């Protein structure tokens, strides 16, 4: 699993601009069928964030969503042609939940990788 994930991490890193700074972590989960990987994070006011996701070696196989702390949907990659990355900017510091799951009708299983970077 680790080797598979390492490859996916490398592919996912392509979506991060060079001048963006990694949050220093790699978020990985091995998903089967309709399992969901989920974690919460803080988006601080005035900071630009990019969230990138990847599974396998092709784009668009992993759907990701951003929810607020009351689980209101703020963003879904499904609404944007399964984009593998999206930018976020918080006007006020906000707690968010990031969810990722395999695209319906796609892979049966895979290493889901989520990366977060930021810039001023």
């Amino acid at each position: 699993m680790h080797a598979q994930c390492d490859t996916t991490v490398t592919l996912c890193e392509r979506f991060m601009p060079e001048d963006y700074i990694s949050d220093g972590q790699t978020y990985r989960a091995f998903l089967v069928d309709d399992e969901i990987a989920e974690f919460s994070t803080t988006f601080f006011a005035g900071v630009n964030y990019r969230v990138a996701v990847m599974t396998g070696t092709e784009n668009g196989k992993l759907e990701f969503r951003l929810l607020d702390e009351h689980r209101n949907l703020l963003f879904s990659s499904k609404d944007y042609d399964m984009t593998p990355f999206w930018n976020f900017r918080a006007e006020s510091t906000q707690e968010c939940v990031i969810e990722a799951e395999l695209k319906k009708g796609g892979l049966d299983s895979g290493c889901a990788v989520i990366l977060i970077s930021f810039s001023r």
Partner: protein
Amino acid sequence: MRFLIFLSVIVLIGCQDPANKEQESGDSLTTLDAQKEGGSDIIMVDGALFSIPSPVEAALFIKDNGSGFREDILLNPNSTDLYPTSAQKAMALGAYGAELGYVSMYEQNDRSLSYMGAARKLADDIGMTGAFSEDLVRRFSNNLGIPDSLVVLVSDIYKAGDLYLKNNDRNDIAALVLLGGWVESFYITCTEAEKGNIAFHKRIAEQKEGLMRLKAMLDMYPENVAIRELKPQMDNLINDFNNVKANYVFKRPEVINAKQLTVLKGGSVHEMDETTFKNIIAHTKELRKAITRN
């Protein structure tokens, strides 16, 4: 059949439906979420994901809002022999990484190299040399004096270390590195807040959820001696933050398609009284002392 791989217990406590506020455990909230998803089974697995606020992000904030470089609050880069065990080295590595990010922001080239050397030694000692590849160290040296480049590299070091430790099933050590990094950068934030800087006062309160996630992450390793020994100091800080109130207001986000950007309009307003603030400062110093022995 729909499973949830992981639920961040702490945030979900804050996410519950008002109608279900009497349910306080993470497990019960997991169930609530599953019910929302269609009433399917839940499996909690060991592969939990935790996002801990980045020390480098903190260093940027400190540089942008702080009172300038302060050598007196930093760890001595020549004191790596204070940490005999792997756990202590891991926490110190996180702390020295935070210092590295901090000094890099102020173009302190000699100090940057000193902290890089200290962090590299600690990483070697705990067998994670891979985080400091020759290429990365060379790029770091070549970019001295260019803060924007250095902080990218410091973050890359953290990420490489995190990846290395997780690939080698040393998640507890990875957690200790994150703990050391968070505490050191939070300590620096506290020293600025003590001077009456409102931006730092606010930033301290905003760390509540990050600290709760840090605690949830550490709770995954109850058998770890170092984590157990830090429990009194962690509990004191957690108790302080339980007095910090956060009031979330939802506002519909704005999408700017041309920039592939969603602007989040909502957010939380935090309230922290003076006693709580002083207790947080005091208990952060105690926790930092327990970790760094400084």
